[in-house]
């Protein structure tokens, strides 16, 4: 019966209050509940440095309107995009190579496992000793956070490619290259893409850490500056904008992943 996999027809029809599906309604309630708690926390107040949600929202729109926020994102996105680009290109290639070749795997796996487990916030100041305090250091911070996730996901995706499909390719006398291009990589691509999505999320953490710990630029500058002059609504607006921006980006990637690589997941949503 189809009802065990997704929503039953009854559930779907029952859920259309205010013209919204039950899922959307619950998701909206969850977000609104959080904002209400934030507003109450600011009104109490938890601390003089904790603004209400409404104050933060006003500050956010002001910062968008006067162009400060857009200029800051232009600065922040530079190291993020370069870092993610390098991590994606290098990471997927290396991960696939590790999945296909045991020697590659033995050599690289410990390095990336250590990097993934390392407390990166503590390593970031060390980056400045080698890469200085400019763009290069921030790109490296993004790479350090994003690369291990992308590499390890890609490697595991290739290693766990369907053995029966590979055997089928062999039985049809496919060459090793055909096996890789036509069977292994297409079969591994959903997990590789999931790794990329997680890598982007980690990259956001990397770039913000770098902007807070190395030199304040972009969003990091907005957070640092408004904190230093005690403009907490603006400071929280900058923090809030990063969370929203990161969530939208990662959410969009997840939708793309579901649409292009995992049509099976659509049913269960």
């Amino acid at each position, binding site marked *: 019966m189809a009802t065990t996999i997704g929503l039953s027809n009854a559930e779907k029809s029952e859920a259309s209050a205010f013209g919204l599906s039950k899922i959307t309604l619950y998701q909206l309630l969850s977000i609104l509940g959080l904002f209400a708690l934030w507003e109450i926390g600011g009104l109490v107040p938890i601390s*003089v*440095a904790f603004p209400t949600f409404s104050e933060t929202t006003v500050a956010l729109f002001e910062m968008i309107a006067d162009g400060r926020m857009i200029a800051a994102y232009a600065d922040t996105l530079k190291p993020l995009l370069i870092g993610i680009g390098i991590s994606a290109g290098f990471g997927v290639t290396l991960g696939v190579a590790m999945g296909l070749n045991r020697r590659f795997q033995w050599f690289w796996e410990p390095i990336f496992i250590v990097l993934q487990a390392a407390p990166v916030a503590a390593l970031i100041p060390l980056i*400045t000793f080698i890469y200085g305090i400019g763009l290069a250091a921030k790109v490296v911070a993004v790479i350090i956070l994003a690369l291990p996730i992308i590499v390890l996901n890609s490697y595991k995706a290739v290693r766990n490619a369907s053995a029966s499909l590979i055997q089928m390719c062999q039985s049809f006398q496919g060459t090793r290259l055909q096996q890789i291009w036509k069977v292994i990589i297409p079969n591994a691509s959903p997990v590789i893409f999931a790794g990329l999505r997680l890598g982007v999320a980690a990259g956001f953490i990397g770039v913000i850490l770098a902007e807070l710990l190395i030199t*304040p630029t972009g969003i990091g500058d907005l957070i640092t500056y408004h904190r*230093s*002059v*005690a403009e*907490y609504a603006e400071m929280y607006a900058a923090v809030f904008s990063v969370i929203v921006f990161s969530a939208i980006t990662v959410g969009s990637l997840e939708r793309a992943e579901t649409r292009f690589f995992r049509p099976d997941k659509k049913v269960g949503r």
Partner: protein
Amino acid sequence: MFQIPKLKPLCLAAMAAVAVALAGAPAEAQDKGTMHVAFGDIPGPDMVNFLAAVARAEKRGVEVEVSYLQSEDIAAQAVVGGQADIGVGTPYALIQKVKAPIRMFYQLSQLRFYPVVNGEFYKEWKDLDGADIAVHGRGSGTEAIMQLMAKENGITYNSVSYVPGSSVRAGALMQGNIKATNVDLERKRLLQRKAPDKFVFLPLPKVEASDEALYANTNWLEEQSEAVDILMEELLGVWREINKDPNVVVSLRDEYNLLPDLPQEDVDEMLPSFSQGVEINLYPDNGGSAESVEEDFLFYTTAGTLQGDPGDLKVEDFWYLDPLNRALDKVGRM
């Protein structure tokens, strides 16, 4: 049956000795209150004067706990939130913008900047026309002073980047990542020591403003007035002793075993650093005054930390000078 241990007479004797010692202790060394001081910096040789005053206050019965937090902002939040009683810094913006119920009450040191450039590229202020400079942060005093000098010399910088921490900027200067910035006294001495001929220190007109001050919740200052008065008196005493003869920092550190884990390099640097500090009037003899606060208003409004006309700002909105005045009445003004 309960066995009397053989050591009992010895224990009794020891207990009696402790009791006699406690009874004979000076009446002052009793509980005069507690205070938790939060620094927004790591412990360093420049804190020896403060820690000596704390050690003396402890001898007079004030229980003092000192914490070292990551930044001045966090220390200020700890004071506002009640996790710490006294903070170290100049939280003018916090007091003005969010009406935090805190007031500064003792000026520990005055602000001193040292604009410094890489001698290979620049020699004087005029050379910085079109140059890339680095300062502590946006809206910081370091930025205000660099912009003021640009205006005076009719120059414009190509870019201003923000590199928090004098030590970080000094390191970046030595590595060649930045070529023009400004540093504090400690890092000026470091640069002169590590690369004596590489850097040029540019001239600067005298700036009169607080660098570090003590601040606390006004309620707490009133409730713990006895403990605060003791600390004030000891601070004034230590500051004046050092201004009279900077050599006392060494004996103070030894006497109270302050910062015993300091690296030898820092220990060696301590005396010359304090001597130079005394030469440039870094340590006020009277812990600040209404006049010094007005000078703060002038500087911090220029820096953008404070908003409004300096003439309209009121001393009592930012400072609580009663404990200092009480202490000065007792120890005398200089």
